[in-house]
């Protein structure tokens, strides 16, 4: 029987588990909590966590270097690329990757590399913006529910379960449908989609922290609840929240790119990574670089962020085990 900790008692298998959580955050939820939000214990927990990590120092260095490069693209694109990513040059249309155009050109002769560099800013704005917004809201809801318990926890978590019944992209799509297509609305929509994920994970963490001895000690020593939350509960939630947030930036970037691909992205964003991939679809048979390079840039961002998230967690965990 022992070692079957991954198994979940039947009554915990709700009709709507962590569902909807985007798959890239799943290892996090599962790694920490076991399937369906229960803490996995002992070897099971170790195993799941190890299964989802990439643990090499070189990996971390490459990941951080890549992310620094992306941030550089976002802040000072002019240094890395030409001044005008939208400049057309019909003579150079559909040129393959070369010394002049690392990633080739599109059908108007625009450099894919330049477009990618200039597309980094909106991509990171959506990724970081929606994660900060949704992550803060979701974490607060989760910590409040987990620490306070009682009817508040019950009601809020039922609501969160309902949100989780809508897979992430669909939840964002409802808001995209209802709002004008602007960058800030897209950030808002993706932030909403992240709220239930953060709430779930952070609630689990808060419940676990609450049952720790030092919280009991703080309670019996007469500290006020507010002090306990600020001094003990929240600091112990920082590590998982940071890890989840780091990984979620990648998820948000992918959702944003997918929305643009579907033609539902913000209209003012030019150039846009998702739109680039979409544009290249029609040329995939001969001029594969138009879609493939932007896709690779997005994928590398996702991988780098999950490598970084994993390491951040290890570094931030106040009490191990």
């Amino acid at each position, binding site marked *: 029987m022992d070692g079957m900790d991954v198994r979940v008692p*039947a009554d915990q298998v709700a009709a709507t588990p962590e*569902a909807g959580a985007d798959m890239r955050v799943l290892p996090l939820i599962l790694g920490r909590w076991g399937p369906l939000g229960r803490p996995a214990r002992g070897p099971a927990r170790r195993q799941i966590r190890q299964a989802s990590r990439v643990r090499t120092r070189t990996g971390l260095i490459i990941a951080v270097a890549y992310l620094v490069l992306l941030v550089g693209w976002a802040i000072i694109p002019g240094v890395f690329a030409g001044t005008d990513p939208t400049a057309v040059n019909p003579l150079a249309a559909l040129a393959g990757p070369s010394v002049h155009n690392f990633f080739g050109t599109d059908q108007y002769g625009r450099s894919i590399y330049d477009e990618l560099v200039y597309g980094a800013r909106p991509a990171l704005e959506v990724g970081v913006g929606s994660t900060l917004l949704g992550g803060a809201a979701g974490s607060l809801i989760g910590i409040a529910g987990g620490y306070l318990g009682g009817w508040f926890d019950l009601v809020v978590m039922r609501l969160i379960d309902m949100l989780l019944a*809508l897979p992430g992209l669909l939840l964002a799509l*409802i808001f995209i449908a209802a709002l004008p297509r602007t960058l800030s609305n897209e950030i808002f929509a993706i932030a909403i989609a992240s709220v239930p994920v953060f709430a779930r994970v952070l609630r689990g963490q808060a419940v676990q922290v609450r049952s720790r001895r030092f919280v009991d000690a703080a309670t019996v020593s007469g500290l006020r609840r507010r002090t306990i939350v600020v001094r003990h509960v929240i600091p112990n939630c920082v590590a998982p929240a940071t890890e989840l947030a780091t990984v979620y930036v990648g998820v948000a970037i992918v959702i944003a790119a997918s929305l643009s691909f*579907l033609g539902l992205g913000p209209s003012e964003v030019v150039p846009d990574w998702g739109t680039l991939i979409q544009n290249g679809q029609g040329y995939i048979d001969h001029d594969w670089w138009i879609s493939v390079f932007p896709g690779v840039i997005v994928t590398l961002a996702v991988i780098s962020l999950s490598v970084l998230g994993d390491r951040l967690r290890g570094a931030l965990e106040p009490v191990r085990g």
Partner: protein
Amino acid sequence: MLGVVGRRIAAGIPVIIGVTAIIFFVLRVLPGNPVDIITAGAPTTPAERQNIINEFGLNKPVLAQFGSFLWDALHGNFGDSFSSRLPVISQISQQAMPTVELAAAAMVLTVVLGIGLGAVSALTYGSWVDAAIRTVTLLGSSMPIILTGPLLILLFSFTVHLFPATGSGSFPQLVLPALALALFACGVVVRLVRGSMLEVKNQEFVTALRAKGVGEARIWLRHILRNALVPAVTLLGVQLGALLSGAVVAETVFGRQGLGSLLVTGIDNKDYPMVQAIVLIIATAYIVLNIIVDVCYSLLDPRVRVQMAG
């Protein structure tokens, strides 16, 4: 057994109603006058506007609108499309099949790839096969469908002419989109199956089986794999959500017909009845499939069955 199913369904109903409410109110509370959407901004007389308001029941209080929407939805009527003014359900039922096919094919592939590769990975633990499987699946689950799709098309449609790049209806057209979804979804399953098998492998009952003289093949298949499948099945339920929302994107990538493309068009046209019907149908399918997964789970693990009954 019946009691288990009944309780799962009972737990699912409030969630479905809640989801319906979320979709319904989000689309109504946020700015935008439905009448302007229906008339597509064309100049209208006040009388025409009043007609539209009456036709779509927009004059009633929002709560009453929600009540009648819920009631009608129970009867399979999701209202009339803002753009075509025809019942949305007729369009949806025409387009549902390609999506169901895609989701089912992707699920089957995810199960086969996830469990198969996971088992192979565990059996070859530490070898290059294990490393290769882990690298490929990690890559697969990190790549968005909007990259996997074009890559698969490039490889299997234009480099090796195996499968058509786009379209829906025939089996060859189903292969690439299903594969794209499965590559995305199976990574986590592979890792979980591998991890669980390695864990079960070292348990005492396995040693006991060996001591008893049970063959290695039987131990791995009947005992280790079966025990490892329990957590994997739960995970598959979760992955369904990813498959369903991935299908929305995959349909556009592979130029397929289906609910996903219909949803995207609906959002583009601000066709709220269409959007809410499709999102609601997908969410309901997801909840129902999860109930089915729960039941499978109890079939797979007798201990859960005992707990459920008790």
